[in-house]
């Protein structure tokens, strides 16, 4: 078994100690940082995502794997060249104004990171202006918004309006998701896609980047 395979397996097992050890040893042995990410760490998460979708794995297990992945990324990220970093698509993710729920958003962030996105998590209760600023600053390909309350659904509309007014609407794709949402709602407020769950979000985002 090569070290990349072992590393992928350690991520899939959610074994953060093994991930740290294997990542360090790969770095020391001279493996390219980008290879460690794409042939090791992300391969592990690639096993996790479909198993989560099919109901074979559950949220706590995914969180363990994501934690392990995070430990590996912490070691490798500072070593990535600017060229490597630039090839990674950026996703800005936040929960809209008035909404304080973070469980769904956190799961989406983990899965997106596992999908190789550079995720800028701008947190919960995020005002439309803050979304606009984040788009200006990070120049993401995709913006994700999450609302877990029926009261905050309209804040998504406000945010999309603000992005449009700032002249940025054609610069980004917008994905929305959250328990009370449904596809017609997403369409009505002018989003590019409705994500029924975190896995769907990762898949749609990956699709959008490919089709760009």
């Amino acid at each position: 078994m090569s070290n990349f395979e072992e590393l992928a397996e350690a991520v899939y097992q959610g074994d953060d100690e093994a991930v740290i050890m294997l990542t360090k040893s790969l770095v020391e042995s001279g493996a390219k940082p980008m290879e460690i990410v794409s042939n090791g760490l992300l391969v592990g998460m690639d096993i996790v995502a479909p198993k989560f979708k099919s109901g074979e794995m559950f949220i706590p297990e995914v969180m363990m794997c994501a934690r392990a992945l995070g430990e590996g990324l912490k070691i490798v990220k500072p070593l990535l060249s600017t060229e490597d970093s630039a090839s990674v698509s950026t996703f800005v993710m936040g929960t809209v104004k008035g909404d304080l729920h973070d469980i769904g958003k956190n799961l989406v962030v983990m899965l997106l990171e596992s999908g190789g996105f550079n995720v800028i998590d701008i947190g919960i209760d995020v005002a439309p202006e803050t979304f606009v600023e984040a788009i200006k600053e990070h120049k993401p390909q995709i913006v994700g918004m999450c609302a877990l309350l029926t009261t905050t659904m309209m804040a998504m509309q406000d945010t999309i309006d603000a992005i449009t007014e700032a002249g940025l609407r054609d610069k980004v794709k917008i994905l929305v998701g959250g328990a009370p949402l449904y596809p017609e709602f997403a369409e009505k407020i002018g989003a590019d896609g409705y994500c029924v769950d975190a896995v769907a979000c990762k898949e749609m985002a990956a699709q959008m980047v490919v089709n760009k």
Partner: protein
Amino acid sequence: MLIVGELINTSRKAISEAVEGKDAQYIQQVAREQLEAGASYIDVNCGNKVFNEVEYMQWLVTTIQEAVQAPLCIDSPNPQALEAGLALAKYGTPMINSITDEGPRFEAILPLVLKYKAKVVALCMDDHGMPETAADRMRVVDSLYRKLTAAGVKDDDIYFDPLVKPVSSVQTAGVEVLETIKLIKQNYPDVHFMCGLSNVSYGLPNRKVLNRLFVAQTMTLGMDGYILNPTDKSMMGVIYAGATLLGKDDYCMGYLKAHRKGIYEE
């Protein structure tokens, strides 16, 4: 034990379609089934229909009341929709789900509680985010209790919802809720409780096992209200048996009556 039947909620696909297609018969059937299964209140929630919530709320309340003479739990964070439902609710004391300690929401909903002399579900949430610990929740409880009673709401009309989170992502979510119930019971013995408990099992397999156990655990500490699916007979069995074992069922009559009506399963 106060059971609020949760099935009339447009987040459920069948209800959403029935509401959009104005299928009164289906809505009435769901209301009747819940009442027959032992619900004391029927929840009415069309909150995700943000563009027509008021109109749908009026239609739902009218439609349900044509079929059943049950008190309703008007469920929306939107004060206009709450008012629209409350104005039409005509059987028993209506319930409002829910008020929180978030500034504008509290200010908008309190007048409705007073105007309709409604029972109110007070959700343990304020402007500082989602509570993690029992202590976080108690700060909200203390504040809400003070403000509600100062405005003239009786203890008996207050239903604290301790805010149940999934144990799949917050390991201590269950135990913090249990601790909160204990503290509320100690400090405010005359208020009631309400919770949507199935959140606790989100993201895990065999959710019904977790839900049933969590009902037993929370009931033991004094929880006396749940919003749930009353047609789940195993769950109803746990609730009737729980009340009996906790000495809250004179001569086990509630348990026996429910047994004869076939309301629960072993």
